[in-house]
């Protein structure tokens, strides 16, 4: 087994195992920690795919930002009151059936797909390449995203503040 294959399977195990733990733990704090493991695994996969910029962005934004937000909210709403309760929906067979059907269909698609031959990335560094693409070809969506973030900030502050 080559080194790359070893790291691939290690990171894939982290990502999938963490995800499975995150959706099954009864305690929300444990689920958040498991989600962190899963996100770290995905970050490692980005590194294997030579997407260094996304590797750093994943760790800073997802683990440093979103996960911290989750932990703060868990602290604010005292989720452990719901620990002893039923964790799954009363109509869980429907959800499980939908998931199973989607899984079978996507797995069949996955096994039949024919990819065109692989091409090489240009030899410049990954960060330069992403920056060129982002700021030359996708400049307008980039600016729209900043507007979206502004709206999200104002909206979440409005939603979460106490009624005067």
């Amino acid at each position, binding site marked *: 087994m080559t080194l790359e294959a070893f790291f691939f399977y290690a990171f894939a195990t982290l990502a999938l195992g963490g995800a499975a733990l995150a959706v099954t733990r009864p305690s929300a704090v444990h689920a958040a920690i498991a989600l962190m493991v899963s996100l770290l695994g995905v970050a490692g996969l980005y590194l294997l795919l030579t997407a260094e910029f996304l590797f750093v962005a994943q760790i800073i934004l997802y683990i440093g930002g979103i996960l911290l937000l989750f932990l703060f909210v868990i602290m604010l709403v005292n989720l452990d009151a719901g620990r002893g309760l039923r964790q799954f929906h009363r109509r869980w067979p429907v959800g*499980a059936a939908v998931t199973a059907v989607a899984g079978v269909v996507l797995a069949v698609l996955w096994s039949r797909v024919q990819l065109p031959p692989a091409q090489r990335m240009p030899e410049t560094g990954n960060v330069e390449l992403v920056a060129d693409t982002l700021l030359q070809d996708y400049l307008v969506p980039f600016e729209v995203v900043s507007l*979206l973030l502004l709206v999200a900030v104002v909206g979440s502050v409005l939603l979460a503040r106490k009624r005067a």
Partner: protein
Amino acid sequence: MHYVAVSLGLLLIGTAGLLLRRNIVIILMSIELILNAVNLNLVAFSRHHGNAAGQVFAIFVIAVAVAEAAVGLGILLALFRNRETVQVDEVDLLKW
């Protein structure tokens, strides 16, 4: 293609969590898992086609995920203040 299989697994785990769990915070985490599956697919195909546009799209997806998490958790805080619950099936004011 192995990366796409991992992404498929993440998507299915996220879907299962989204549809089966009662806790709203866990449901939001499942949405993050699904978005991560999408990102992994985008980056894998970006590598395969030798084109950085997929990675740029993954950056956009991360930005939208941040906005979604902020707004979703804000809604969750407002909901908890009004109803004192975080279980989705106890939030049934609009149910007929």
